[in-house]
């Protein structure tokens, strides 16, 4: 007869995740008990305090290092803390944007154009379910980069994905597009997670265990030939690369970025990238580290294609959100070079880049929410003409974010690119560096085109205005702007912090 030993979970180490999950449950509960009118403010309070509390918890566990927080399913180490903190900070800013409820439909179930929809809008109802959904997604994102077995990874992947699928379909305006985005995101997401799972199966078959450490051990001392390992790595990568939007697994990105409500786009562009790359880093740096000879070539090719494709196709975009989507594809390529580096510098640089990029992304989409006409957000690039004249500060902030994306010095993006490319060079991937640099040159073109449009083209009288941002949105934009500049000029504190923290434990 089996004897059952009760599992030991370190609730302290898991507290960030638990806090967020708890907050989400509280949100669901509030949804049930509170009146419709009081929900928005209550939900916002719950969500923000949850996230802040979680951030505090992350800070409290910063010096911990443990593989046994959850029976070996979770590793708490430096990178974990950094990535979780990044996710939480980005989530807080995103929630600020989400709280500006102009972007969400009042009644998701109502048929677009139906009287119910109109009625609900007229009554000024709010879709407060977004908050708990966001928290669930955040919980998944917190877990994804710290999970150390394939099972937890898979569960975390789904926990972070499902709410996002839903949230993508909740746009207030152009709901057909939004629902279409949700459908596409969902179908492709499920498709790719099937690949992930299939890959996990083969890795399990190869190593005889589900944990990353068992894979690591099997790579070093296993008796099997590497076929299963390779199949496993490949298919697992398909799932991960899908999440980060690498070519050729990128196709969902522009459609979903465009269709989803802009605050959700901000959230998923910034935070999902952190989570997904965090997981990638952990998996490739720990489980697969010694098999780098097998995965590096194909990941190199993907990095190159991704950078080039993203930069190139962005040129042809006429919609600001689609353009940013392709830009995010290109950035995924740059980030993969950091994974490829497979050294400490690469780890540090990738984490820094993720944070810097995420901050700038949230800021960028925050500004996108502000440019509107009578029918909602204006994302047609041509109608952004003359924004610099209408609203110089917003335009300047936007230009700064774009310059950060382009990697112009004195912005965080430059430090990010510099560190990540130098890590890649150090890792021996000189070709990738060259392609990266050339892609940056191409990318500069379309960023600059937007700047030209904003500053050097005369505005058309087409009713496009920059609305006065709400306090929360304003905080988001100002804070992200400040961080972007600060990290460009004085990156040292953060770089040092990351360097001192970021070491994976196995």
């Amino acid at each position, binding site marked *: 007869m089996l004897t059952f030993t009760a599992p030991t979970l370190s609730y302290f180490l898991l507290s960030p995740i638990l806090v967020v999950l708890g907050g989400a449950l509280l949100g669901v509960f509030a949804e049930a008990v509170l009146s419709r009118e009081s929900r928005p403010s209550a939900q916002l309070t719950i969500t923000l305090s949850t996230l802040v509390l979680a951030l505090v918890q992350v800070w409290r566990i910063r010096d911990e290092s443990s593989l046994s927080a959850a029976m070996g399913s979770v590793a708490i180490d430096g990178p974990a803390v950094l990535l979780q903190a990044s996710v939480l900070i980005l989530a807080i800013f995103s929630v600020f944007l989400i709280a500006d409820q102009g972007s969400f439909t009042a009644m998701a179930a109502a048929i677009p154009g139906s009287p119910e929809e109109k009625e609900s809008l007229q009554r000024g109802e709010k879709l407060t379910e977004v908050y708990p959904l966001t928290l669930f997604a955040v919980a998944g994102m917190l877990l994804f980069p710290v999970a150390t077995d394939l099972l937890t990874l898979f569960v975390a992947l789904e926990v972070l994905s499902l709410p996002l699928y839903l949230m993508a379909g909740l746009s207030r305006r152009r709901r057909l597009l939004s629902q279409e985005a949700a459908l596409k995101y969902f179908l492709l997401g499920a498709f790719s997670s099937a690949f992930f799972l299939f890959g996990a199966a083969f890795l399990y078959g190869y190593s005889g265990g589900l944990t990353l450490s068992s894979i690591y051990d099997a790579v070093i001392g296993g008796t099997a030939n590497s076929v299963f390992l*390779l199949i496993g790595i490949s298919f697992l990568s398909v799932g991960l690369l899908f999440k980060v939007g690498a070519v050729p697994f990128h*196709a969902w990105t522009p459609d979903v970025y465009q269709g989803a409500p802009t605050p959700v786009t901000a959230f998923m562009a910034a935070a999902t990238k952190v989570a997904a790359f965090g997981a990638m880093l952990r998996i490739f740096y720990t489980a697969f580290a010694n098999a780098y000879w097998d995965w590096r070539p194909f990941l190199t090719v993907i990095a190159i294609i991704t950078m080039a494709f993203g930069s190139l196709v962005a040129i042809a975009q006429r919609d600001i959100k689609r353009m940013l989507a392709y830009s995010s594809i290109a950035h995924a390529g740059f980030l993969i070079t950091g994974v490829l580096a497979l050294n400490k510098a690469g780890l540090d640089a990738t984490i820094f880049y993720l944070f810097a990029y995420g901050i700038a992304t949230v800021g960028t989409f925050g500004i996108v929410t502000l440019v509107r006409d009578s029918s909602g957000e204006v994302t047609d690039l041509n109608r952004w003409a003359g924004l610099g004249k209408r609203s110089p500060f917003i335009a300047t902030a936007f230009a700064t974010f774009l310059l950060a994306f382009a990697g112009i010095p004195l912005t965080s993006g430059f430090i990010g690119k510099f560190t990540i490319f130098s890590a890649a060079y150090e890792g021996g991937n000189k070709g990738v560096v060259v392609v990266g640099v050339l892609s940056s040159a191409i990318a500069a073109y379309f960023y600059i085109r937007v700047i030209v449009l904003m500053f050097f083209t005369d505005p058309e009288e087409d009713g496009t205005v920059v609305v006065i941002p709400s306090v929360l949105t304003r905080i988001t934009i100002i804070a992200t702007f400040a961080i972007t500049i600060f990290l460009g000029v004085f990156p040292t504190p953060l770089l040092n912090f990351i360097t001192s923290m970021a070491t994976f434990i196995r």
Partner: protein
Amino acid sequence: MTSNALVYLIALPLFGAAVLMLAGRRADRRGHILATVLSGGSFLLGLYEFSQMLSRSSENRAVTQKLFSWISVGSFKVDAGLMLDQLSISFVLLITGVGTLIHIYSIAYMSHDLDRRRFFAYLNLFVAAMLLLVLGDSYLNLYVGWEGVGLASYLLIGFWNQKPTYATAAKKAFVANRVGDLGLSLAIMVAFATLGTVSFSGVKENAGQASTAALTAIGILLLVAATGKSAQLPLQAWLGDAMAGPTPVSALIHAATMVTAGVYLITRSNFIFDAAPIAQLAVAIIGAITLLFGAIIGAAKDDIKKALAASTTSQIGYMVLGAGLGPAGYAFAIMHLLAHGFFKAGLFLGAGSVMHGMNNEVNMRRYGGLRKFMPITFATFGAGYLSILGVPPFAGFYSKDRIIEAAFNAGGVRGVLLGSAALLGAAITAFYMTRVVVMTFAGKARWEEEVHPHESPALMWLPMVLIAFGSTFSGFLFTRGDALRNWLAPVVEPVAAREQELLSPALVSILALLLVVVGAGLAVMKYLRQDVPVVAPEDVSIFTRVARRDLLQDDFNEAVFMRPGQHLTYALVDIDEVIIDGAVRGVGRMATGSAGALRTTQTGFVRSYAMWILLGAIGLIAAIWMVTL
């Protein structure tokens, strides 16, 4: 020996130029006087230096003045230094002397011009630059003056640049000169690279150790420089057009001084040419060809100034020929240069006087019988005429015959050819100069009715008279006891004993005179005995027509340099636009195009997105399949 006064030779006229330029209209009233006084002051200073020099032994006559270190980089060290030796002083006196006279002349000649002040500013600038040219103690200093006179020449040719043709003429002069300057600057580079110095003394010292090839290269490049400045083939074409400038300018710059700078350069560089026989021969050949070339053109010109300009080309050809004969010819070249300075200046001033009295008419076919109206002009012109023909005892006789003689004595076929050319040139010279004199002063009056020829004012004829004295007596003075040759001796090596004499001096003189008589006679026959038509006859031989077109020099330049150059320019402009910028834009278009093409992969169909994922996965496992094979 050092002197502190040399710089003032240059500074005086330079100061004048600066004042006249900067003061603007305020200096309109007295400016010309200031300029003339300063130029005269320079002349007096030159005379003073000359007298000082005479009081020293021939070895110690040269004086130098180091002003400051001009350029010093690594071993390339050039001081702003001046050097006045026997060769320089000859030029200084010519420049300032003739220059001052022409200043005086111009006061009257330009009295009606609103921009007279500007004219005098240029004149002073020219004098200063020319003095710098002859006083510089290194090739680079010389170069400064060299281009400076080019600038002054450009400004003066284009003095009336509101006439587009004059502006073009000025530009042409500058560009042609620049080609020559290129030679000079390259010569300096070669000199520095091989000899490590660019000062005259240094080059002279080191020339002995340099390879003949290097020296030949320097020599040829210096010759190129000389051809540009001195209007020798193949860079002669600008001089005729340069007559666009006011006539005093033609007298001073394009006859007496600047155009002879090439001869100065070659003579100054005698140590190089003496060690580079090929270069020296090239000099002589260029001189010989040019003297004939210029003379032939001169014979076909109806414009009095252009005829004289062609004559200048021809006469400088003599000088260059002389300089190309080496030690045997340097002194004669310089002598002819000085004599030419007088008589050609006189001729030009005479021409100016004629124009002055003829409402600026330059077409000799519109002259005739002016002798009666302008006696003084006729007399001074006549002195210059006789001098250029080489009639004894006028100055030209001494210098030109010596050159012809030296040419014959150059030895072998070379000597015969060069000498014959020089002799033939003398005959043609006689022809065209007689033609000029006859058409202008003799025969019937052919001018239009409203023209009232009159003698020029004293301010104009006085300088003409003084210069006429020069053209009459200078030759005699120079040759007396080989005065000039001995004077120049330490600068240009004293001539070696004559090895052979193909023709005796007397024989040369007789031959030359004979030919002169023939040439003059022909001209008299053609232009005095027959009536000169007012409009140039069109039914003339092909040779005449070609000569009238300046022996096709402009056509040649146009066909060989200008047109291809223009076509090249237009082609390059197109290339820049279409190919180079086109490539840049093409990269942009390629990016946009491929972006547009790649964008179509985004079909909007979720199934095709899934297909991408599937294909990606297939790509991955295909790669695995390959590596594990």
